[in-house]
């Protein structure tokens, strides 16, 4: 699935779109095409990838968060985009130590709001969408984020008013 020509075209396209000061790292593994991207460039690059010929990455498949507590930039966010035209899956990786004001893709793909809500509830990462208490995925007590590594696996807590806001 990851053809070298497709990978190089996408890399060249993204290289022109990012801001000049920040570089990116390309992980061209045999199975996945991964690009590490700066949080400031994420929304712009995703919008261009969605709307530009011949790429048309029309689908946001998934957003995943991973916690590495021993690293400086603790949280790694993995965005998976899919292009029907190229039959190609692209992973945009974002590393950050910040927990608030992260870039949100809700203006480009509405499903991103749902996935970001889930990450907010489970990891405590707040995205810059119009966020309020009502929009939480679960309503959990403050500062209890179960999927972080400092939260013990055997602990119990009560999730009050489990009203999903998808």
């Amino acid at each position: 699935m990851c053809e070298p020509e497709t990978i190089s075209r996408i890399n060249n396209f993204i290289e022109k779109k990012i801001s000049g000061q920040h570089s990116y790292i390309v992980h061209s593994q045999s199975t996945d095409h991964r690009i590490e991207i700066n949080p400031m460039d994420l929304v712009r690059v995703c919008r261009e990838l969605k709307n530009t010929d011949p790429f048309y990455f029309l689908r946001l498949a998934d957003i995943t968060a991973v916690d590495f507590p021993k690293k400086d930039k603790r949280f790694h966010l993995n965005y998976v985009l899919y292009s029907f035209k190229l039959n190609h899956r692209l992973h945009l990786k974002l590393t950050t130590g910040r927990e608030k004001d992260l870039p949100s893709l809700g203006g480009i793909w509405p499903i991103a709001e749902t996935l970001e809500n889930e990450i907010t509830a489970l990891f405590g990462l707040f995205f810059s969408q119009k966020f309020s208490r009502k929009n939480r995925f679960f309503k959990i007590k403050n500062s209890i984020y179960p999927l972080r590594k400092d939260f013990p696996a055997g602990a119990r807590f009560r999730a009050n008013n489990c009203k999903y806001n998808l």
Partner: protein
Amino acid sequence: MKTKNQKYSENKLYYNPDRGEFTSRGNLLFEITLGGNTITSCCLRGGNNHRGIEKILETKRYNQAYPWLVKCDDRAGEINNLAFSLAVETLLDLKIPDRVSWIRTVISELYRISSHFNWLNFIAKNLEEYFTAGRTEKIICRIESLLQKLKGRRGSCNFIRVGGLRENISSNFLSDCSHLIKYCDKQLNPIKKDFLNSDIFTARSRSLGEISLEKALDLGITGPALRACGVEHDMRKTDPYCSYEELEFAVPVGENGDVHDRCLIRFEEINQSLNIMKQSLQEISPAGAWQENSGKINIPSKEKSNSSTEALIHHYKLCREGFKIPAGEIYQPVESPRGELAFFIVAGGDNKPHRLHIRPPSLAATRGAIELIPGNTPEDAALIVDSFDINSGEVNR
């Protein structure tokens, strides 16, 4: 008059797409607000079925993960195991015997058929078509009894493992599968004639719950619901795994993206799955390899561990520590009966995953259903939700 402590207000309804199964019972409630007889807004009340599977799997070894993965999906749990096994095998760079790939194809199609017939049973009961519901229940019983012969119990299962299968298939499995295919083939036409082509179903489902292609893509919808909008996208064709590359089958596609198209596509997929099973059964030999040969991933057989010291040591190590995976990341998608199911595994070089994320197809489908429900009556809303085939075990995890 509404008081402060009143739990349910007068103009709110709660719809629970409950099939009475162990992962879906009472765990996904659509809270519908009515204005007269039409729905003005809808949201989801859930989380009762949240078992913390992703967190728990960070504390379990890779070879202990199977029972947890199966809990995400009550009718096609083996496909979760398949996706997990494919992801781990790619990280380990393992080569699987061809016979195992063919058997995995047959088993995943069997679960796809079971899941679709289960959905058909549920939607027929909701529309009070009990004749069709009775027919589908007979078929489901036959599939379950075949799976019981294969793995020893009904319901959740544990047959596909990393490196191969749990054990070799029995000598009767292939003939039982071909009998089941003949039986299902005979039942499909009467069901289509009595239920799907009937005036009642067509009148209720045509132009109901129409979703445009752009909206479906924006909401991340996959599977039959996306194919109903006109996109011929199936993971088995675009990103083939197991033995799907060598098989010939069609991908049914709709036009309007309404409830009628979604239902017809699922029904046609049953037909295609039976076709796939017929082709795959010819490629499976009754005897042969059923797991990879190194002995370091799966527990070796009794004969080997009794006769060889090395096999005995591997047996002890696998039971005590499991196997380790070198550091890396993988995103493995497969085609489940509801859409694109994917596993994202971050391996830290240990015998336990650092992060294991399941991308459920039902989450996007739930979002799609919530967008479509306002403006309809409660009965039509129930039909729209059922047409997406939502599994609460996947949404809540």
